[in-house]
Structure formats: C-alpha cells, structure tokens
C-alpha cells in the first residue's frame, strides 16, 4: 500500500463507494485493512452469518468507535482483526501482512508483539495481583514498559499489589487496560470495555484509553453499543447484520470527561 493509496474505508459494496476508500488527510499510515470479510458459524444444522462482507481500514494513531446492536458482528470483526479468530473468506492485512493466511504460530507472534486486548469482563487472572496481571504480558513482549508505569498511566499506582477480588469493576477494567498497553502495542482492541461498568466508572476507563491514544499514539478500536461513546472517536463505524452500515468522521472529538450517559 503506497502513501498515495492511503484511504479510509467509507463504503460497502451496495453503496457504490470506492472500495479502497478516499484518502484521509492528516491520518497516519494504514494499520488494518479488511476486504470482503465474511464469517459463518456453524452450529449443527444452523449457519449463522456473523459477517457478510466487511471492508474496513484503520489508520495509525486514530481512535475508532464501532457501534452496533447486539449480535451485529462487532466482536467477530474485532476478533478476526486481532488474530484471535480466522475469517471464513476475505482478507485482513496488518501493515501489509496477510493475517488470513498466517499460521497459528504467526498469529500468536502477531498478538504477542503488536496487539493489546481489553475484554468486557476484564478477564484478569484471579490468582495474580494487578502488577502480576500486567507482568504476565510484559514477560513475553519484546519492548514492554514497566508494569508499574502502565498501572500509573491508568491511575492505579496505589493498587499494584491488590488482587482482582479486592478491586472494583472499574479498577479491574483499568488493570486490564494497563495489561493491554504495557507491551506498547501498535493497536489496542477493546470489546465493550465499559459494558460492565456504571457511567462514572466507564468514563474513567474511557479517559484512560483516550490518554493512551493521545500519549502513546496507539491505534485504538473500541466496540460499544453505547452511541454516546462515539463522540470521543476520530471516526465512528456502524455495523448492522454483519455489514458496515456507515462510517462517520468526527470533526470534533469530545473528551471522555465531557461525556455522560
């Protein structure tokens, strides 16, 4: 992909838009590029088409919010981009590397070196303290920041030695974010990071993500079904029934602290 071809995804086939997308001035180079992505789950007799041909491009340093009703395929898309799952057809490239054709070992290495995940249910390891939950990632990544620094970044400097069971939901989710950013990933993929949190705590978590995006220039993708959160994004991608319904640029990103729901 050349500099000139820098493009943002803005259309799906049926809408007649440019499949490669128009250029997006001011944005960084392309990080992810998905083309014609489909995913079909088979459960016995039933086939569920979770993705039905998705085209999407993510750029370096941007913060993208993906909106969509429950079951619209958001998690499926994120999982495939993050190398957690494989597509049924279509391609996803990460900085030109075709993930759809990569081996399991290559996907493992890709996740280890480049991607940070934040899950809706935090998925902290209960037997490890906050610091150790971060270290479990820094132990294996090539250029990690100290676990302590990651926890400071999310405002948990004083909670390092607490176990997950000794922390609130919001604190746990911030540990999860610290864990995701500690390896200094190129991209941060967050699946409903505020889904299990009340609004105030949710906003604290979003502030942490915003700060990472701003200070470390990490590309951040946030999945949510809460439209409000879209206001803090550079772009908002809407999914519906396994297709990209629309992509919308935000002229003015609002900060997380300005929001409430």
């Amino acid at each position, binding site marked *: 992909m050349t500099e000139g071809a820098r493009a943002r995804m803005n259309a799906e086939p049926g809408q007649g838009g440019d499949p490669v997308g128009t250029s997006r001035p001011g944005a960084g180079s392309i990080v992810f590029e998905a083309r014609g992505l489909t995913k079909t789950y088979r459960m016995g007799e039933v086939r569920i088409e979770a993705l039905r041909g998705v085209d999407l491009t993510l750029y370096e340093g941007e913060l993208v919010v993906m909106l969509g009703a429950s079951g619209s395929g958001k998690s499926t898309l994120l999982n495939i981009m993050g190398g957690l799952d494989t597509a049924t057809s279509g391609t996803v490239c990460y900085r030109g590397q075709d993930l759809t054709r990569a081996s399991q070992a290559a996907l493992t*290495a890709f996740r*280890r070196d480049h991607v940070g995940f934040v899950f809706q249910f935090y998925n902290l390891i209960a037997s*490890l303290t906050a610091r150790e939950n971060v270290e479990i990632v820094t132990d*294996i990544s090539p250029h990690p920041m100290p676990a302590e620094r990651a926890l400071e970044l999310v405002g948990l400097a004083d909670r390092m030695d607490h176990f997950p069971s000794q922390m609130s939901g919001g604190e746990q989710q911030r540990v999860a974010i610290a864990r995701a950013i500690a390896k200094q990933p190129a991209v941060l993929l967050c699946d409903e990071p505020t889904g299990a949190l009340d609004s105030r705590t949710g906003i604290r978590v979003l502030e942490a993500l915003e700060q990472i995006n701003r200070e470390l220039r990490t590309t951040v993708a946030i999945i949510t079904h809460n439209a409000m959160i879209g206001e803090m994004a550079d772009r908002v991608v809407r999914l519906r029934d396994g297709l990209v319904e629309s992509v919308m640029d935000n002229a003015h990103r609002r900060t997380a602290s300005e929001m409430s729901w």
Partner: protein
Amino acid sequence: MRALDRKLLRDIATLKGQAAAIAMVIASGVMTLIISVTTYDALRLTQQRFYQDMHFAEVFAELKRAPESLVERLRETPGLNLVETRIRAPVRLEVPGFDDPVRGLLLSLPDGRQPALNRFHLREGDLPESGRSDQVVVSDAFAEAHGLRAGDALSVIIDGRLSRVRISGIVLSPEFVYQIAPTDLLPDYRRYAILWMNRRALARAYGMDGAFNSIVASLQAGASEAGVIDGLERALSPYGLVIAHGRDDLHSHRFLSDELQQLRAQAVILPGIFMLVSAFLLNIVMTRIIRTQREQIAVLKAFGYGNGTLAAHFGLLTGLIVLTGWLLGVVLGAWAASGLMTLYAEYFRFPEIRFRLQAWVMLLALGVAGAAALIGTGRAVWQAVAVPPAEAMRPAVPARFRRGWLERKLFGRLLDQPTRIIVRNLARQPLKSGLSVLGIAMSAGLLMMGTYQLDAVDHMIDTQYRLVNRMDVQLSFGNPVPTRVAGELRHLPGVTAVETHRSVPVRLIAGHRRYATAILGLDESPGLRQLLDARQRPQRLPPEGLLLTDYLARDLGLAVGDRVEVEVLEGPRRRVSIPLAGVVDEPIGVSAYMTRTALNRVMREGPAVNGAWLLIDQDQSQALFDSLWALPGVSSIGLISDAERGIREYMGDTVQMFALVFVLLAGSIAFAVVYNTARITFAERARDLATLEVLGHSRLAVSWILIGEIVILTLLAIPLGWAIGAGFCWAINHAFSMDLFRIPLLITPRAFAVAAGGVVVASSIASLMMARRLGRLDKVSVLKAVE
C-alpha cells in the same frame, strides 16, 4: 520469577485440597509398587546372598545307610562338584520348663568345623568343639522361641536313648530358612527344632559308625541337575535310597520360592490396578481443573502465549502434583515395606534381611506415575491448549452450556425444585457425570478387592479347618504298624474318636512333569479328614484309583481317567501306574489320596497304617499327651488347633497385612475421589447456588442441591463399583494360586459392604465439608465475579 510461574504456585495453593487428594491417589499407587517390588526384591536378594555365602547345596539325597567308602564313587558322578555325606536323625527333645513334646531333626556336622556345603551363619556362640559329643548347635528360631542361649542344657532322645547336651551355638542354615516339620505347612518353632552335633558323636548314638544316610552336593557349572540326580539314584539305590532331589523339592526352598512367586505376581498386578485407577482419576480431575481455567487460557493466548508455553505450564502443574505424590509414595512405601519385611523375617530366617530401596524401583515408580499422569492429563492439557483464543472475548458461562433435551424439558418450570435441578445438572453433562460415577466406582472396587483378600484368606482357613481337617490331634508313627493300633488308641484317656491312615512319600510323574508329595491312604469315607468335591461336599474314595488336589491335577496337566506314574519313595524303589479317579477341592496344600487298602496293595504289604487322627476331650489332653509319648513308635504328635493358629498368624502377617495396607490406601483413594468430585461440583455450582440463596431459597434447600448431586453420584457408583471390584478380585485370585494355598474366589457380603460403606462415608465427609464451604461462601462476591 515470571508471572506465569507465580500463577502456577498460587493455583496449586488454591487447589491445595484437590492437589493433595490427587497426590494421595498417586502416592497410593506408588506405595503399592514400592511395597511389592521392594519386598520381593529384598527377599530375593537376601535369599541369593545367603545361599551364595553359605554355599547352599543344589542336590540332596536321603537313604537308609551306605558305607562312607561309597563317597569316592559318588564323586565320580558326572556333573557333580562337591559332595558331602552326613547323618540325619529324627529326635525328640525335652526343653526345660516346656511340657509339650518337641520334635527335632538332628544332623551331623564335620568334627568341630563348618561343612563345605550348607555352612552355618553363627548367630551366637561357637560350633561344637572338636571331639565333643555333648555339644549341639541349634536353629535360631527354636532358640528364640524358647529363649535358649549358648550354654543352656537340653535333653535329646536319639533312637530311644536320652542324652544330655549343651548348646554351644545358635545358627542359621540355608537349608532351613523356612523351618517346618516334614508333615507341617507352617513353622512351629516351639515344637520343632533343627540341631547339629559332631559327626562321630551322632554316628555312635544313631548306630551309623562309618556310614551315612544323607548327602548334599553341588553341581559343576552348566551341569544338568536331573542328570546328576539320576546318577546319584543309580549309585545309591542299592543302599535304600529314599529320594534324591534338587532344591525345588526341599521344603524350605519350595516355600520361599512360592512366597517369592506370589510377591512377584503381586508386584505386577496390584500396582497395575492402583496405577490404572490413579491415571483415570488424574484424568477426570485434571480435565476439570483445567476446564475451570478455560478463560484464563484464552486470555493468555490472546496476549500471545504460545501453545508450547501453556502446555508446559499445565504440564508443570500436573508434574508438581505427581512429583509430590511420588515422593510421598516412596517415603511411605519404603516405611511400610520395611515393616512388612520385619514380619517376613519371622517366617524366613535369614541372618539379616537386606532391605534396600533401589534407585531403579523408585525410578520405575516415577516412570509409572509419570506415564499414568501423561495418560491421565495429556488429553486435558491438550484440550487446554486447544482453547480458541477468541473465547476470551466471549462471556464465559454461556459458552460452557450444552443444552440437552432433558434440560429443555425441565428448564424454568422446575427451577424451584431442588431435586429437579440436581437431575438437570447431572443429565446436562452425561459424560461428565458418568466419569464421576466411574471414578467413585473404581475406588469402591479397590476397597472391595482389599476386603476380599482379607476375607477370602479367613474363608480359606475356615474351609481347611472346619471341613477338611476335622481332627484335634494328628499322630504319626516312625514305621508302619498293624491296623489294630486304632483300638489301642481308642482306649487312651480322653480319646473320643480314632481314624488311622497310611501315608507314603511318592513322586508323581506325568509326562515330563514331576511332583514330590505323599499319598494318603484313608478309609473309604473318612470323617476326620474329609475330601471335598467342587461344591465343598465330602466325597467318598473310589475303591481303586487316585484322587489329587485339583490344583495339582491341573498343574500336572492331568484329567480324570489319565494314568499317573507313581514313584514310591519308601522301601524298595518302584514305579506303578495308577488312574486318576477324581479331584479334591482343598484350599491349602496339595496331596494325593486313595483308599488305605489300595495303598497297602501298592506297597505290597498287609493292613498297615503309619498315622492316626484323634478327636479328644480337651479337659484330658495333658493326660493323653503323656500316654501318647509313652507309646512306642510315635514319632510326632500335632495339635490341629496349633496348626490352625499358626497358619492364621502367617496369613495375618503376610497376605492379610498387605491386604490391610491396600484397604487403607483404597479408603484414602475413595475419599480423594469423592472429595475431588464434590469440590469440582461445588466450583461449578457455586454461582447458581449463591443466586438461589440470594433469591430467598433456604440454606437447606440450596445445600441439598449440592449434596444431593454427590449423593446421587455415589449411589450410582456403588453397583458399578461392585462389578469393577469383582473384576479386580478375579485378577488377584489368579495371581495368588500356588502350592501352599489357593485363595478362593469368594466375595463375602462384608466386601460388598465395605466397598459401599467406604464411598458412602467418604461422600458424607466430603458433603459436610462442602456444606460448610457453602456456608462460608461470600454470595455477593461470587455473583459479582462474572457479569
């Protein structure tokens, strides 16, 4: 330390109850292996060393009398290495302070020296001084039983003449490691002694000057034992040869070999069964522990942990548990084995038992435990590694759900009915429930196997002493006497019934198989010594033909109607051919039977007997014994109650002691299994249960959901456990058939009860522990933990 390693340690700490239970299961398997193999190895090694150090003879012969000059000719027997002649005399003894009659075997030793073959291990004192005729050395078991020391006095009656002797030393001999009187099955150290005195002195007392009646010999390397025996037989037959035989026909050696054979069978089969069960339980438990970590595994994979690292992580988790179990098993096993060896030392008299815990045995145990772990957890670890990383993104609980028809039918409608919830929980995962049932059943089976061994041994002894041997006293005469002796015995004080018999030592030959035993000639329908048929009913002797213990008939490959070659080992050597008329079912010992009149015909003699069985009035036993010893020709008097006590003690100290250890191990396994099952059930249900309690269900109802599930699993496991246990018993039964005894395949109600009771007790304790845990459970945090 890496965070992943810290997680490993914390996981083990959290799982400590379960980890300890699994380690216990492995330790039990390792223990059985260490005990069995080490005991076998120690006994075998001790035997080998003792035989070697003492130059144990390989060929033996007994005869009436031959001149010492014959020894030059014997030396020319091809294949023979060393040969020594000696004198062997049956004697009676009087031990100061001991009233019962004591029999003994007095052997000659070279004048004041160690013999070249069958040397002595001197435990105390010295060999008789050269030229002394009033000194003897005695066997250590006999000395120990009477508290005799070097310097103590004894009276020995040789050929009817009493001589007073002093004990110069206490010795052990490789020829009498297992020291029993010729007609006995078990040692009676108080009433049977082995003694040695200088050759010259014994020759003079026994009328054997310049002659011998026994030889021991060793073979040249590579020489054929049978060839040498044949050569000796030819050379000795003009001198009243009784028998020439190898080590296999020597009582002591035969019993020792039997014991070793039994231990070896046990060393294979018992650890095999225990390890099988361990592997299976490990599988169930590790699979579930790993399943509870699915989300964690998915998270780790999402962050880029590779399959190898994760497999190693869970492998290490298992490995640490296995290693702990192994270590525990080795330590406890070595301790138990050394305890059992001390018991064995009572029966097999060695200078010392060379107990050692060999590295290879420990490594073998580690290998077997490791293999069991690998088989047991390989699949679980593989499943863990195969968890798709996308799982981390999904909410965990629904992913685990599998909907069965039963659940769909019952869901919702019956949610408020705890028992239905239990059934639904179980039916939703039939495979998992089935494995739990199988696991508990296997531990019940182990319990049943151990109890079976304990009970079957008792049953066997009961059969032998209630149905087979019904006499009180067993008499034997040195030489055949007319049958009218029965009438004389009948008139002795306290005698209420008399049956006489003729006993002849023989060698049975069928094809190339030979077996030295005795033919008992009995009344047609003996009342005091019954011959049982396969259904344990007394059978009559046919007028012609031979009956054999069924085990012996099988061993010789004989079927009813086949002809058996019988070599008579008393008087002139002859061979006759007698048809096998039937078999006798008896659990202890092996023998051959025919009517006394038929046996008299075989012996070409008139009506003659050389033994009698008596029923007596116990109140008059002392008077009876006094008059019996006064009778000329009585060579031995045996009390059947002593024999029975002896065999019960022996079995209690050996087979049953092993069985008891195994019952205890099986019990701990049963607890470990049930506890683990309960613990896992608890972990899987905790959230549901907390929810129900929060929704207002009573603590009792909620506890019942948990406990009821364990109860149902246990109840289902009991009948299956009985079936599995019967299989284990069958396997054990086959491993434990030998000349000395055959344990019957008879599973007592008690064995069924112990199997069922064991798991019921285990599950009660586990249930109580889980109920307490449920009481302590912080409902709020459980509900908060997910969603």
